[in-house]
């Protein structure tokens, strides 16, 4: 694998490592944005009103069970090739963790705090946006980062239906029985996942109020 990975030819051109890395990152980030736009409001609304929690859980479970390969193939057969099927499949994959995280986060906000906010005269939207969501951020980020990991790993499958990304190395390596290429692809995916996670960890540090930072992780003390 080292041989394939460090071969200069593989780092240049439209099918080189940097291009595939960027494609892969592109799929991941856009997917996360779309999924967040759908999942966070949904999770937040249900968490805030307290109604329909079982719907969220149920929907999450169903979406989690969908095999991404099948969704990808079905959308391709229906809508043709290209990036659209990839996004449909990956967004469906990313929604459950983000939605569940948001819902759990909002439900976990101390009712006393929420009550205080109402007591101060905040409107419901204010309670949601200025109190519940900021307090729920750690869990929301947790769901988000979990989703990011899954999306990075699963975006590899997109190459099966001709899309780009690091999966190209994995599938071509498989077809050519070139394990060096295949392993390189897998390692790059894992590396990208770590980087993306670090990125979001940094973002979390910046946006989550210091008062909410965990003092230490759990465990028997």
């Amino acid at each position, binding site marked *: 694998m080292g041989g394939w990975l460090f071969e200069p030819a593989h780092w240049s051109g*439209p*099918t080189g490592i940097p291009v595939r890395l960027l494609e892969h990152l592109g799929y991941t980030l856009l997917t996360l944005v779309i999924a967040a736009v759908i999942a966070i409001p949904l999770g937040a609304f249900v968490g805030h009103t307290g109604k329909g929690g079982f719907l969220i859980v149920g929907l999450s479970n169903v979406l989690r069970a969908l095999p991404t390969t099948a969704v990808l193939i079905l959308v391709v057969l229906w809508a043709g*090739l290209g990036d659209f099927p990839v996004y449909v499949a990956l967004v469906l994959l990313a929604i459950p963790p983000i939605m569940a995280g948001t819902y759990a986060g909002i439900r976990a906000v101390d009712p006393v705090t929420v009550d205080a906010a109402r007591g101060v005269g905040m409107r419901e939207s204010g309670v949601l946006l200025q109190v519940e969501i900021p307090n729920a951020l750690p869990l929301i980020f947790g769901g988000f980062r979990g989703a990011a990991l899954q999306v990075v790993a699963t975006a590899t499958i997109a190459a099966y239906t001709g899309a780009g990304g690091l999966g190209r190395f994995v*599938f*071509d390596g498989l*077809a*050519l029985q070139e394990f060096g290429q295949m392993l390189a692809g897998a390692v790059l995916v894992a590396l990208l996942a770590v980087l993306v996670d670090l990125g979001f960890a940094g973002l979390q540090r910046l946006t989550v109020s210091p008062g909410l930072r965990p003092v230490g992780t759990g465990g028997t003390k």
Partner: protein
Amino acid sequence: MKRIATAVAAVMLLSACGGDPLQGGNNNPAPTDTIVVGSANFPESTVLAEIYAQALAAKGVKVSKRLNIGNRELYFKGVQDGSIDLIPEYSGVLLKHVNKEAQEVSSDEVYTALKKSLPQGLTVLDKSSAEDKDAVVVTKQIAAQYSLKSIDDLVPYCKDLVFGGPAEFQNRPDGLPGLKAKYSCEFKQFKSLDVGGPLTVAGLKDNTVQAADLFTTDAAIKANEFVVLEDPKNVFAAQNVLPLVNEKKASQQVRDTLNAIAKKIDTKTLLDLNQKLSAPDKPEPEKVAKEWLASAGI
């Protein structure tokens, strides 16, 4: 404790459903007198495998199927390690797979060379006259635009065009390297699509690729009015359909049955089978094979 016992029993029931988890089913080593029939990752290979399997089963041979495995680079390992005993093959490509330097082109020469080049323990039975070759295919529009009839006509434009095919086409001696060696044709870019499947057809239609590797018996060629470019320099050698078989499992009965089938299959058969498989109601290869066997009187 009673509750725990009930729960444990439930879990064991769940795992018992599959029997001893690591044995049984079609996916594990079959008893030694069973022939495991495999197929490659495209429908024609699967329907041929079904034909072989059903014909053998009808004669009382114990058969187990492992269909839709992958490309030759993958499944040949399964043939070598004994996971697969029988698989439909194409003489020319198989020859080039076991001997990259092979230069034989004609049907008989390829067949003789193949019998000599196969590793110990493997052999091929009689070849049929049915042929399904890889080919360089373009759309009607591109053929008109560049006045293309054979690959020779394509040569001046190769460097400006994108070629699509299965990933392995990049490495096979009868793939890009062959086109480069015999025609001096080097494409601007190669796109890994699939094995003559929907991705490649779509790639040609939407001009993602201007030329692609498809199989000559593919129903999509006629359906989309694609043009198959002639291959006067014979990058693609003769590709007769024949069974690759593990000699230990090739009993006389197996040989007779499969040789009888070889006599009845010709190129038109392949075209018909592919046509049936891509019919709107998408019949299963098993059914298509059954119908063919009935009509062929086997």
